[in-house]
């Protein structure tokens, strides 16, 4: 079954091959495992980019294939980040606290340990008590589970409410933006229990691991590559075959799909939820590489960027989303990082840190208007040449009905 699936989806094989080669190349060039041609911070950037590619293909499935323009998937990404971040921060602080308490003449009681951890973590928001939301922070397996379950449940409930009342199109997009905004505003509050606008930090330090960041960075890079590969396989499976057919049909004419006997809402809910869960995984891999997560990451604009990546890369093709996310996010960090040379027009100097967003916005408009297939559409020229017998032929219309309109 898997064999025939891969055989009929050649682009999946090509993608996995390219991803493997890329991973190998980075490994060979990295500080920890190779010749040290690229810096550890760049390995992290590349690893984070892979995570962004993962959420981009999720976005492509929900938007490009199923037609639901969700402007809220970064919320799920952020939740994944917070879920893993809580354990990272808790366990790491516990280590530090245990170290300092070990010098005391009397062994510390569990209560003292807990208080000390609480003071360390919540001191910035003027508290030392563990909020309810941290109940499972001590347990890695439970927090790992939360990466999947919390985004999944939120998507399930939100999606059920929205799809059931047949909210579609722009209204649905607005609703998902509202959800993201609400979550981000909630997290900004100090009493949200997640350290308000400080967010969670020090996430790059893995508890119980004494290896250097050089090593840790390449581990996370590998993990991100594996996750992207698996995510790509999963979504290629979902969007191919009969499921893919129904999902695309829902995008093109959902009313018609209902009259074929399909419960459209269940399908949308399935797609919305599964992509939210994958977004959670992507976030959980991203933030340990970023080192810090705060509510600004979940701001509505992030989810809009996601849609821009997918649009520029090409909707309705998974590799398009990967291309869009890679290109735009890397360019974005190049331009906003100040590395891009400013252009002096004589009367005005274009400083890219200010003008990058304008450039991005313009590219988005140009792509949407003139190249709706996005960058990924360029690959069609190659494919069309190979299968030219599939194109419109003279038999497409019948002589009796006259020329086609």
């Amino acid at each position: 079954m898997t064999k025939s699936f891969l055989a009929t989806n050649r682009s999946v094989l090509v993608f996995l091959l390219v991803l493997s080669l890329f991973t190998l190349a980075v490994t060979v060039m990295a500080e920890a495992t190779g010749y040290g041609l690229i810096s550890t911070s760049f390995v992290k950037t590349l690893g984070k980019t892979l995570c962004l590619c993962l959420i981009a293909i999720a976005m492509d499935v929900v938007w490009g294939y199923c037609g639901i323009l969700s402007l809220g998937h970064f919320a799920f990404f952020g939740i994944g980040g917070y879920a893993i971040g809580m354990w990272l921060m808790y366990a790491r602080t516990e280590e530090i606290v245990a170290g300092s308490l070990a010098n005391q003449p009397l062994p510390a009681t569990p209560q003292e340990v807990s208080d000390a951890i609480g003071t360390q973590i919540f001191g910035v928001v003027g508290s030392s008590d563990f909020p309810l939301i941290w109940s499972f922070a001590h347990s890695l397996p439970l927090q790992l589970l939360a990466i999947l379950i919390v985004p999944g449940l939120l998507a399930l409930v939100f999606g059920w409410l929205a799809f059931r009342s047949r909210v579609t199109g722009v209204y649905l997009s607005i609703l998902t933006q509202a959800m993201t905004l609400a979550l981000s505003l909630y997290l900004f509050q100090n009493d949200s229990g997640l350290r308000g606008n400080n967010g969670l930090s020090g996430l790059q330090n893995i508890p119980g691991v004494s290896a250097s960041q050089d090593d840790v960075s390449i581990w996370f890079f590998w993990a991100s590559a594996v996750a992207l590969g698996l995510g790509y396989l999963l979504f290629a499976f979902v969007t191919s075959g009969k499921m893919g057919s129904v999902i695309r049909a829902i995008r093109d004419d959902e009313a018609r799909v209902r009259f074929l006997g399909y419960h459209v809402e269940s399908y949308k809910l399935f797609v919305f939820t599964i992509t939210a869960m994958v977004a959670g995984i992507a976030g959980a891999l991203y933030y340990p590489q970023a080192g810090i997560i705060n509510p600004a990451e979940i701001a509505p604009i992030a989810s809009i960027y996601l849609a821009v990546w997918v649009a520029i890369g090409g909707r309705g093709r998974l590799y398009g989303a990967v291309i869009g996310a890679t290109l735009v996010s890397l360019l974005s960090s190049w331009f906003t990082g100040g590395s891009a040379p400013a252009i002096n027009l004589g009367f005005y100097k274009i400083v890219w840190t200010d003008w990058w967003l304008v450039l991005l916005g313009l590219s988005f408009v140009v792509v949407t208007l003139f190249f709706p297939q996005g960058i990924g559409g360029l690959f069609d020229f190659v494919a069309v040449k190979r299968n030219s017998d599939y194109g419109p032929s003279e038999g497409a219309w019948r002589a009796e009905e006259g020329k086609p309109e």
Partner: protein
Amino acid sequence: MSKRLLEVSGVSVTFDGFRAINNLSIAIAEPELRAVIGPNGAGKTTFMDIITGKTKPDEGKVIWGEKSISLLGMSESQIARAGIGRKFQKPTVFEAQTVRENLAMALKNKRGPFDVLFYRKTANGAARIEALAAEIGLSDQLTRVAGELSHGQKQWLEIGMLLAQDPRLLLVDEPAAGMTPAEREQTTDLLVRAAKTRAVVVVEHDMEFVRRLNCKVTVLHEGSVLAEGSLDHVTQNPDVIEVYLGR
């Protein structure tokens, strides 16, 4: 003897104060071929909308099958799964997908997301698709994208999708619109054949087409039944003559 399959009784629908369907009652047996005719705006499409759950009536009953289930509380997809298939006035096929994919989607199978996700192609299913394609004259077009088909071919594909669902009742809204005379003839044959084993309701206002169907005719006017019987019978009805000629 044929048994009653669908009974619409005393149904009314109002759109913004305008009564599109007015105390309409129609019963359909299984098997049966029925033509519904009437001038534009008579409420023919709305009648189908009510049966298929797209429009909820203000009053009246729609009863289905041996168990006399009410269709009014059911969603569109439930009604479709109960065995009612529908062809729209404007041909609606999934233009971005191939003829085969269109038919495969319509093929009678389990409709749940997980059934569909783990669905595997079967030899049986492939054979049914081939047979349907032959029935609608699209055998050579299976790998073509539906959007490339001619208007008439799209109409047939949609009828093929209907048949693929294997419904007990087919509702066919103006199947011959935009077809050449030769295509129309093939379409009537197709419908007459389908009606051997099922109930088929055809909306059409082309009298020649209806004559070839050679079946009981219901004339709708201003949302209710004006006359019912053989085509000759209804065309002699003075009210019908007035409605058609008085336009």
